[in-house]
């Protein structure tokens, strides 16, 4: 049996080392994201732009300040938010396949956006002329309203539902119902509007402007801040709500905060970037496997770092540096992420079932 462990100190050392590594990785990805793209900008000029030095080529300053910097920050924030939301959902539902959208938050956002883009065809330009989209404030608004309504519904239902499993099923059913309405709208819409909607549904970190970025950052900070209060509660939930209750925790309040934090986080990302899959479900698993623990005192900081890094990497790849093409972010996260997670899972020794959350 290989179950005897290294001493706690060497385990701690390993964890500190991993934290350091991810910080470096994030720094590297940050600089690369600013340097690479359709045009390459030398690192020393990137530095020049960041500290506001004179004499950097005007177009580069513009590209970094208005395109690449907001994009990389958006990517990092979204990655953190999705991972934090996913971790909380997986723990609360004690289900390794739970993701940030399991409660139907993105369905609500999608419905909001679908109504804005597709529905306006019937109502006659309620929100538009926004076929150019991406970052259009009307869409953010529509998605926020949709996500917010679902959030309110979840919190309301979460108060009187007996077990998390019931909540899970309600969320899934709500998602299906919403998708049906979206499908209905798509079915009766003009092709160019359908295309606009499907572009939104591919997800993107581009086109979030500085004002929107500020709002998004504030909301995500609040969500992550809530989660930071919960390592103890989330650890207790690993044993289930009954145990948590007998350990003196206020399970009703705990559930409320988890739902609030997870929904606000996933709602914010969906509103500003579209429904971005995979990161939320994968990052918690990567964190558990790398740090070899389910203890949220370690997992919470871990998923913040890993979430940011993974998302920034995906965003960088999506830009296809050196070309004029940009890939949808969902394509990148799934195409590159899935094999990676398969590898992480398969290389694990048998029995180390940290996948059981």
């Amino acid at each position, binding site marked *: 049996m290989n179950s005897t462990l290294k001493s706690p100190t060497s385990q701690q050392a390993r964890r500190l080392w991993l934290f350091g590594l991810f910080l470096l990785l994030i720094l590297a990805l940050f600089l690369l994201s600013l340097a690479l793209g359709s045009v390459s900008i030398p690192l020393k000029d990137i530095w020049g732009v960041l500290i506001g030095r004179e004499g950097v080529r005007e177009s580069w300053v513009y590209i970094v300040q208005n395109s690449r910097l907001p994009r990389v920050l958006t990517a990092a924030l979204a990655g953190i938010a999705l991972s934090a939301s996913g971790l909380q959902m997986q723990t609360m539902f004690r289900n390794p396949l739970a993701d940030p959208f399991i409660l139907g938050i993105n369905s609500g956002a999608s419905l909001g956006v679908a109504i804005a883009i597709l529905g306006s065809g019937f109502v006659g330009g309620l929100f538009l002329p926004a076929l150019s989209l991406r970052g259009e404030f009307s869409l953010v608004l529509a998605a926020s309203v949709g996500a917010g309504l679902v959030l309110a519904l979840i919190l309301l239902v979460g108060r009187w539902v007996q077990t998390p499993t019931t909540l899970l099923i309600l969320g899934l059913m709500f998602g299906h119902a919403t998708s049906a309405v979206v499908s209905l709208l798509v079915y009766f819409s003009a092709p160019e509007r359908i295309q606009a909607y499907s572009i939104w549904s591919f997800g993107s970190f581009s086109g979030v402007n500085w004002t929107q970025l500020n709002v998004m950052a504030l909301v995500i900070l609040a969500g992550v801040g809530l989660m930071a209060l919960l390592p103890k509660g989330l650890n207790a939930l690993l044993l289930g709500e009954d145990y948590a209750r007998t350990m003196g*925790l206020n399970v009703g309040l705990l559930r409320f905060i988890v739902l609030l934090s997870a929904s606000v986080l996933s709602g914010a990302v969906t509103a500003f970037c579209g429904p971005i899959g995979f990161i939320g479900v994968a990052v918690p698993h990567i964190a558990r496997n790398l740090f070899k623990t389910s203890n949220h005192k370690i997992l919470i900081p871990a998923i913040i770092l890993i979430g940011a890094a993974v998302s920034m990497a995906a965003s960088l790849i999506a830009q296809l540096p050196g070309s004029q093409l940009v890939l949808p972010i969902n394509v990148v996260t799934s195409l590159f992420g899935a094999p990676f997670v398969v590898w992480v899972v398969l290389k694990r020794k048998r029995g180390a079932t940290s996948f059981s959350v």
Partner: protein
Amino acid sequence: MPPVLQASRLKIGYKNGGKTPKVVADQLNLQLRAGEFVCLVGPNGVGKSTLLRTLTGLQPKLAGEIQLSGRKLDAYHSRDLANQVSVVLTSPISVGALRVDELAAMGRFPFTGLFDRMSEHDWEVVHETLRVVGVDKLSQRYVHTLSDGERQKVMIARALAQEPRLLVLDEPTAYLDLPGRVVVMNLLHDLASGHDKAVLTSTHDLELALRHADRIWLMDDEGLISQGAPEDLVLNGSFAQTFNRAGVLFDPLSGTFDTQNSGSKSVFLEGQGSELIWTKRALHRAGFVVNEEWIPGSPRVCVRPQEGATTWQLEHAGQTSAFASIYDLLQSLPK
């Protein structure tokens, strides 16, 4: 000093939406003292878990009163309640990659603050409970690498780390092999008598409960609970009455359960010692009624213990044969 747990005229069951609640048991009067190990036994589905969940505050009572250390259960703040009662629930846990000491440390939750900062004293308590339960050597192992028995001990250690006055367990031996069950029951008895806890456990291991419990709460399918020392319940027939359902017989002589014997073939058996007892069991199982006197025409079995090798001698229908094992003997008996 008031008893650790006192329930009077307690009514338990499930609230059923707006409809009339489903009552599992009514008019229960129960008492549990410090230092006492009580086993709650009864056939499947009589409501043992419901009772335990109600007594620990996981489920609301329907009527009556529950007092913990002289104070009403409802009056406890959840954190104070956690200082009084801790539990080991029946469902198998899957906590993923947690070390044994991390899991046991969760028992300190009622004592630590929002961010669960463990003091030196908290860790001392955790390590002490791991030692008491006998899993201190495993403290750095991951929980998912433990055997079922080890994991159950860790869950007991976690419950103990809460430093409760009352420890409630719902079928803690359900997934364990026989040695594991004996060890856990022994441990629970020691926790009560040696550490002055009140320990209440439900179990299906009747024979172990009879052996280890200070007191038994015997719940029948009408929700009535007979209480008493195991021996009292055996002698006054409560045990036999509760469990004598189709095909199962409680034998007050041996304290064991047996299948109802429908055999009518008789056999005469002589011998002594443990060989005699086990031979009798085997014959019983094979459908024979073992007689004290020989009836002409029926087989006659004689156990002859000898140095090193016991032989079983069978006389039947004028023939005598000897066997080296009970198994061989059974093969040759008339069907």
